[in-house]
């Protein structure tokens, strides 16, 4: 009961903080302390959001489609790489360092290259998203496989279980929470990755919309699209949390989530 109260007060205080910041922001821009054309008031942002809503949705559809395909391919690829690396130790030893090194290459730096190679369609965007999303999945799963209880593996071995059975009954389920931790990161990367790659060229998408409104100096619309992107990310993250809850029914009432 006390815990519950605490979590409610926590939530309330964060809402109060958000509302406070919004009021302060509205005040600063209404009083013209900050020039209005540079920092539109929250109300202006909401107006722009509503005014451009159909257009925003149209662009959002493209971005979400790219994010979805990129994420789906990235997750499946990440999963396969993790399974292969877990199964064959020499592949793990050979490729793990390379995998880490590839992550030091900034996404923004390879995006223009991908555009040159693959053109202005969806292909370079999806490719970029695959590159950024598969890594957290692979690392998460590999950590998960390693976290499997060695005694439980020993127990299955005493039952004469095959490697595949050990994988199915011990390693895979032990790595589910690690997988979801990776998926949460990958999901947010996928949206950001889509937007960044759209900046560099394309015909449709929130990133394209952003570069257009930037060129016309409509700050309110800039903020509106930023707002939309964070709302999308938030919804997707919540979706992952929900998915985790239904695929890990044993954690219910364990207070782990």
């Amino acid at each position, binding site marked *: 009961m006390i815990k519950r109260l605490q979590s409610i007060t926590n939530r309330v205080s964060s809402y109060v903080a958000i509302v406070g910041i919004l009021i302060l922001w509205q005040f600063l821009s209404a009083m013209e302390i900050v020039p209005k054309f540079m920092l539109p008031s929250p109300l202006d942002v909401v107006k722009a959001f509503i005014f451009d809503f159909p257009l925003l949705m149209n662009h959002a559809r493209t971005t979400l489609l790219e994010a979805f395909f990129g994420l789906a391919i990235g997750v499946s690829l990440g999963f396969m790489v993790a399974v292969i690396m877990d199964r064959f130790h020499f592949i793990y030893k050979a490729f793990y360092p390379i995998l880490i090194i590839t992550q030091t290459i900034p996404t923004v730096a390879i995006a223009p290259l991908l555009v040159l190679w693959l053109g202005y369609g969806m292909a370079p965007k999806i490719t970029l998203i695959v590159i950024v999303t598969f890594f957290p999945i692979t690392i998460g799963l590999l950590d998960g496989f390693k976290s499997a209880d060695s005694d439980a593996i020993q127990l299955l071995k005493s039952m*004469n279980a095959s490697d595949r059975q050990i994988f199915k009954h011990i390693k895979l389920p032990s790595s589910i929470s690690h997988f979801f931790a990776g998926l949460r990161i990958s999901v947010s990367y996928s949206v950001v990755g889509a937007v960044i790659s759209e900046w560099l060229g394309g015909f449709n998408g929130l990133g394209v919309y952003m570069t257009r409104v930037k060129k016309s100096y409509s700050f309110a619309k800039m903020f509106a699209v930023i707002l939309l992107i964070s709302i999308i990310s938030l919804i997707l993250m919540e979706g992952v949390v929900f998915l985790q809850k239904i695929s890990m029914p*044993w954690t219910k009432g364990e207070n782990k989530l």
Partner: protein
Amino acid sequence: MAKLSVNNISKSYGKREIIKDISLEVNDGEIVCLLGVSGVGKTTLFNIISGLLIPDGGKVLLDNKDITGESGHISYMLQKDLLLPYKTVLDNVSLPLIIKGENKKTAGLKAERYFKTFGLDGNQDKYPHQLSGGMRQRAALLRTYLFSQEVALLDEPFSALDAITKRNMHSWYQNVMEKIKLSTLFITHDIDESIVLSNRIYIMAGKPGRITQELKIEDQKPRGEKFVLSKEFIDYKRWILNVLDDGEIK
């Protein structure tokens, strides 16, 4: 004829000899205890009997058939209950049948038949963390039993339980054993437990570990409160303590 016989088993890691020349037998339906201090090589011996480790010398025979280094014949309950947190009790318990290649449904049905005997009825769909310590142990025992009805190895099966739960488990365990007649070899370092539960006790001592003594506990049924406070019980205990002390001096 012995159900399980272990002949002259030795094992060393590098230059360190863990166990040397160990021979023992478990007859059909017998409960045999392996008693000794920690680090004497009891778990190593179990790993060998279950086929997880290959001995440097010696043989393990089940029904006179050589099974040295082969796992899958003898069921083994490790020190922790090792119920998988992400499987329901029923799925946990039927796991050995699934490993043997049965489908989930028939394995579940087979396993469910024993839930009453093992005092687990009504807990089929619960997850392990919802069970008490004693129930978890019973579920682990049932899983062990479903794996093989030949011989079971139990590595300190009740050591993680508190004293009161442990006592209840002892009487429960004796009742179940009456019903299922499972030949059992179990490890403990609890002298009282070894006397209460077993038909025969092997005492292991030394470095490398060897079997130094063997003690037969005369049949007394039921072995409840009365037995624990009886003179016979105290005599057995005194004898064991003496043997263990001698082992220390050597």
